[in-house]
């Protein structure tokens, strides 16, 4: 099993698309089983027993598992598809490789982890012995990832070669035999995982030493900039997700909110940023009440918001970078004049921001959707931090990013803190919370149940996150 490791936009997916015949190489050759080959199309790739599982699955939701697996090479009975034969074939493959799925289930009804198995089964059904997986764990939970790894080990034991694309160091060390590291489209090294460590791989990926522990000065906390008092917030179903929550963020400190997903974090963030009207309680920014003032009220009071999901909330992917960067200030001069917007001035404002925040591969006119994930997040951060908000609400700010981009996000948040502004960091990554925060709060069932210093042990934090009583 061979892993391909690189930052977002390092060229991993491009390389794999070449192997799968989706793109044609400009130069060079591909050697398969000792023979140089030309792969003109995915069909040819399948003929050469190369199979690929894409990051976004390509299944037909309304069809059953078996129908999806045999699609385009259906066993026939006369003019009709032989459903029983298809189901038998799926069961047989499932058993052989330990990929358990119900062949009669409809794809739309099964979970993401199961859907991925269907994709893998489909590839195996076509007889592939070279299996390419593009970021297979990006959509999986920890549990599902562990199961996937079990399956992949079974496959390699059966003689299938697996190419595993990832930017997650730990996973690669866990599963692969050898790792090839790409940086900006160039191979920078191939190493055996037995000789590698997270630090050595990260150095290869980014090209320099990466600080896994964030270095920072002690906080010089000032006045309270964000005060939340007895806040009640409902979720989409009208149930209380945040119950009587109080917290305070002072200038010059980063307050981390740790917790198991679904304990009211999203609702808390949405209430503070004005996306959700709280049922009761107060939210004050530098003494000014913003509870119920809406998004614009929160913006005006000095809230910056790095949203949890940059595709859904943070960016309009079809807008240009300039238009995205204007999302907070398009209704004010200089962008708006005499009631009209000026694309030219939008671009003038965007250019220095793109440079300052090191957004690579983007001109002001580039659409946001064509950037890699890390660079998209830089655009969000540039927009939210450029106006020096009093308090920045960062919700999962590094989700799905590679180490280089994570480091950038962290340093930006620390810069906010060192400039005397407040940061509320909501994250599921305990490591991130601990290394950045000056104080760690634990949220459980909509309440803050504990407060710790950042050097708290995993055990203590874990117990509090699960609602265990501590000395809080």
């Amino acid at each position, binding site marked *: 099993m061979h892993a391909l490791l690189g930052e977002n936009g390092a060229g991993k997916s491009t390389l794999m698309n070449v192997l799968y015949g989706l793109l044609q190489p400009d130069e060079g050759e591909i050697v398969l089983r000792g023979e140089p080959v030309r792969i003109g199309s995915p069909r040819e790739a399948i003929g050469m027993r190369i199979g690929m599982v894409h990051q976004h699955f390509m299944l037909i939701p309304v069809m059953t598992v078996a129908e999806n697996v045999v699609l385009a090479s259906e066993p026939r009975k006369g003019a009709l598809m032989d459903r029983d034969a298809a189901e038998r074939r799926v069961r047989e493959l499932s058993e052989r490789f330990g990929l358990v799925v119900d062949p009669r289930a409809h794809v739309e009804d099964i979970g993401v982890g199961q859907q991925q198995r269907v994709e893998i089964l489909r590839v195996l059904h076509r007889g592939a012995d070279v299996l390419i997986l593009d970021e297979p764990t990006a959509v999986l939970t920890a549990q599902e990832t562990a199961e996937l790894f079990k399956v992949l080990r079974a496959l390699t034991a059966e003689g299938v070669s697996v190419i595993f694309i990832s930017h997650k160091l730990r996973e690669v060390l866990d599963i692969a035999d050898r790792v090839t590291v790409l940086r900006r489209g160039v191979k920078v090294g191939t190493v055996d995982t037995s000789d590698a460590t997270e630090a050595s791989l990260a150095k290869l990926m980014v090209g320099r030493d990466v600080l896994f522990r964030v270095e920072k000065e002690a906080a010089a906390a000032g006045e309270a900039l964000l005060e939340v008092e007895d806040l009640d917030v409902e979720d989409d179903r009208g149930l209380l997700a945040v119950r009587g929550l109080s917290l305070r963020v002072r200038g010059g400190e980063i307050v981390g909110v740790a917790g198991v997903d679904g304990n009211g974090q999203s609702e808390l963030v949405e209430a503070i940023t004005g996306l959700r009207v709280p049922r009761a309680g107060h939210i004050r920014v530098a003494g000014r009440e913003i509870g119920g003032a809406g998004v614009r009220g929160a913006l005006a009071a000095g809230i910056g918001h790095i949203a949890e999901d940059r595709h859904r909330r943070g960016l309009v992917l079809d807008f240009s970078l300039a238009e995205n960067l204007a999302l907070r200030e398009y*209704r004010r001069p200089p962008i*708006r004049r005499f009631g009209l*917007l000026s694309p030219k001035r939008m671009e003038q404002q965007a250019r220095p921001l793109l440079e300052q925040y090191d957004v690579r591969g983007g*001109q002001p006119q*580039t659409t946001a959707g064509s950037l890699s994930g890390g660079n998209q997040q830089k655009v969000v951060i540039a927009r939210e931090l450029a106006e020096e908000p009093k308090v920045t609400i960062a919700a999962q700010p590094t989700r799905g990013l590679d180490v280089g981009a994570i480091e950038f996000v962290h340093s930006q948040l620390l810069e906010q803190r060192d400039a005397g502004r407040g940061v509320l960091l909501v994250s599921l990554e305990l490591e991130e919370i601990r290394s950045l925060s000056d104080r760690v709060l634990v949220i459980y069932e909509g309440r803050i149940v504990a407060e710790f210093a950042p050097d708290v042990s995993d055990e203590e934090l874990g117990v509090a996150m699960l609602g265990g009583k501590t000395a809080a």
Partner: protein
Amino acid sequence: MSDEGGPGTITVASRLSGYLRGGGVLIPLITAFIAFLIGGLVVAAAGANPIDTYRAIFEGSGLNWLFPWVSGDDRTLAALNLQQTLILTTPLILTGLAVAFAFRAGLFNIGGQGQYLVGTFAAVYIGSSLDGTPALLHVVLAMVAGCVAGGLWAGIAGLLKATAGVNEVISTIMLNWTAVFLGSYLFTLGGPLHSDDPAAQSIPVSNDVLESARLPVFWGDPELQGLHIGIFIALAVTALFWVLLNRSVTGYEVRAVGFNPDAAEYAGISAGRNYVKVMAICGVLAGLAGALDVLGWQFRIATNDIAVSQVGYYGIAVALLGRNTAFGTVAAAVLFGALLNGTSVRNLDPTIFEPQLASNLTFIIQGLIVLFVSAPVLVTMLTRGRLLRRRRPTPKPEVRTGAGA
């Protein structure tokens, strides 16, 4: 490429709109070409010569007036034909824009027909009453009445979507039928707006629009249905449409909501309020189309014509073929105006091709265009977007630094 999840709430309308503009002008040109080609096959199958037929349709549309070598009687005839083509083009531009604007906000406005109809009702009512109003004021009042009626009509669909989440496709189609029956009721024998003219007591028509509310004819004979100035109004509105969409705060918000309602909300833009606003603007455009038709050349409404009218529906094909852009919509409206006029019974030589069949040819071409233009997106809809998302290349910054999109 590590981005899990997809944009969840992006509508099919928005995806179709994005796809259309992403494809450049080539796609609509090829689409129209193939549609005409298949139309030609149908003509051949019906036993006529496709090339002769298309030439006859072209001459019937009067577009040959643009050729300097056409002279004498031919030129006079071409001018008459072109006037008729442009009279038909005028409302198509506006109903096309009414569909295009909604598309850009991620909405399907199938209700252009209903909005057009209520526009004609309001314009004919104001235009036939208020006797003694000065001419300029009267015609402006009648046009505004058409706009307001269309805007309110479409606003119902916007409001239903914003407040109750009613799909705008369903509500606008229902409002189309409501408008048809409303018109039948208003102008039928003994209906509230039935003609007062003693000579028309057995005919279900409205009162005639008064002279003071008629749009002036600037080309051709007013008695022979010359070209009224509505075409300039439609073109001016097209320019306004471009500014509104691309340069105004409203346009920016509309596009943001269209592409990604969640991100728009995050920037403080209310998607619901935008839906109402967008639909109302669409309705104003379609309502104006109705007003121009009534005040420019029809001058009255007959209940028989209400259910037959297709102007609003053609607007959908016009917007799709015009890629939902201002200029494209005008070009597509001219094409459809020419087709409709060129295939009309009056204009097509029956020895070349039966006009009754030819007008069906227009339907065929329209249908094929809608089908071709929307097919990729319908496929996308069926597979929940997975196909198209893969086909769209993702430029890597390292490879194409600074590639403008």
